């Protein structure tokens, strides 16, 4: 078909929102026909949600297991690629795709790029853009001589198509595979702390810039004085300086209700931004003027968080 093959992602029976974003990105690829595959037990249940404008075909792939399994996905998606010979395969840059996309690309010699936030196709040539050196530069890559290119796209970047359509629906039979891992159970993230970050409207967030555990108290006190909920980046939670329930980001909480987010000593790694970049008013305080947190902030202070914190305290 030499079109675009999109791999939709579901977890525990729910389509992940990034699936529709992938379909939005597919439309920017210069009019190549778009097919979207969904791999799950009873995959037909996902067809209505995937029937959006721009999708020519929904391919259902029946799996025996509902949870992600690397061998099963590698084998099924691999077979699908060989059967359809797409020019471009789009998947999410997600924990599931971390688990098999690179192995697939390696084994079959496909072109490959991850965490892509921009794709274009001009004159038949595919160009993908990703970040480099801690997101401080943009890196433009292409794939000379590759008939098939797998791109893992960053979430919350591409706009999902709106409306409904009536694509062709077809079933693809995945080859039998003996998996070498056995899924056991899901375990909910530890919660039960005093706060629910997803309902906080004003968050004061601290990152590794605070340097040592002894400094946490000062920011806890500041947050209280400001009427803010104290949040943090991952290293602070990993070190046990604040409970995991206060971690904002991809593997933590999303600041869903937040209107004002003050980030202190947070560099702005993609996984942190995933939980807060949508907030209307973001203020970043960082000594590094090039820190990527400034690329999502409305206001920036290039300066020392301790000095700013001390001065700020005088006003409340």
């Amino acid at each position, binding site marked *: 078909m030499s079109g675009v093959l999109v791999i939709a992602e579901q977890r525990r029976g729910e389509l992940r929102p990034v699936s529709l974003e992938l379909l939005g990105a597919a439309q920017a690829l210069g009019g190549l026909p778009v097919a979207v595959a969904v791999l799950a037990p009873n995959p037909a249940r996902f067809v209505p949600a995937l029937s959006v404008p721009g999708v020519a075909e929904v391919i259902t792939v029946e799996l025996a297991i509902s949870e992600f399994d690397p061998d099963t996905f590698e084998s099924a998606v691999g077979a699908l690629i060989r059967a359809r010979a797409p020019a471009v395969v789009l998947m999410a840059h997600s924990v599931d795709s971390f688990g098999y996309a690179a*192995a697939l690309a390696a084994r079959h010699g496909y072109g*490959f790029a991850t965490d892509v936030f921009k794709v274009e196709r001009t004159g038949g040539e595919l160009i993908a853009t990703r970040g480099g050196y801690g997101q401080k530069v943009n890196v433009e890559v292409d794939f000379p001589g590759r008939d098939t290119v797998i791109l893992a796209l960053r979430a919350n970047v591409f706009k999902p198509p709106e409306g409904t359509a009536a694509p062709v629906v077809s079933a693809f039979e995945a080859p039998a595979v003996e998996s070498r891992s056995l899924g056991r159970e899901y375990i909910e993230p530890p919660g039960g702390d005093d706060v629910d970050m997803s309902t906080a409207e004003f968050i004061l967030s601290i990152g590794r810039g605070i340097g040592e555990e002894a400094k946490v108290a000062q920011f806890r006190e500041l947050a209280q004085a400001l009427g803010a909920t104290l949040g943090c980046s991952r290293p602070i939670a990993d070190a046990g300086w604040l409970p995991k329930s206060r971690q904002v980001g991809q593997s933590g909480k999303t600041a869903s209700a937040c209107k004002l987010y003050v980030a202190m000593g947070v560099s702005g790694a993609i996984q942190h931004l995933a939980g807060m970049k949508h907030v209307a008013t973001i203020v970043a305080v960082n000594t590094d003027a090039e820190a990527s947190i400034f690329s999502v902030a409305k206001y920036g202070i290039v300066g020392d968080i301790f000095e700013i914190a001390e001065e700020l305290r005088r006003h409340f």
Partner: protein
Amino acid sequence: MKILVAVKQVAALEEDFEFRADGRDVDGDFLVMDLNEWDDYSLEEAVKIKEACGGAVEIVAVSVGPPTVDEALRKCLAKGADRAVRIWDEAMRGSDSIAVARILAAAARAEAPDLLFAGVQSSDQAVAATGIATAGFLGWPHAAVVSQFTYTPGAATAVLRRELEGGLLHELEIRTPAVLTIQLGINTPRYASLRSIKQAAAKPIELRTLADLSLNAAEVGEAGSSARVRRMYVPDKGRAELIEGSAAEQAKRLAAIIRESTGAA
């Protein structure tokens, strides 16, 4: 039993940096090198397995890179690796994650470990692919973003938890030999003692070349990579309005922004 720990020396940019003349990378003079943060955790995980079983485990740190990488490998020796292997050939320059994985897979075939650990991603390029691509070349079972790991040396399977979006965990049992990519926070990496740093300085770093691993030049470097860098550039700085002035002035403005956005008096 043996655990191979793949480690990368990552690069951070100096405050003022320049691109190379061809515009396809940053000039090497402006890079500050360090051991990838994730690799600290995977090395510690290997050391924990060794300590738990009383020592019958050999830990081999392996890195693909030029002589400057020795510094990162010495750090691993100081933190508990038994051996350090550096793989290099000028032909390997410019290797992307897939090409590095091809090299690591060849090294793993030669070393025949029971487990291969890699970091989830590198802090500089954040590809999140090398470990799982290595598993692809080897044809070994694999799991990504492992935040908890239980393995008894000699056992045919290991039990692990993958950390998914939102912090949800997924537990599974996997056959060995396997490749695992290790996530931050799985343990608390130790600091190397002064004594172990001194001892590490005296230990040899084993060198392997293209020929040692029976690879050819077309399989590595840019030729063996899955993508080609066209150019690198500094992105638009975005929309942040910088608040200038002394700390006192900056804080005053921040206080006003807070009052305005929260509606507080």
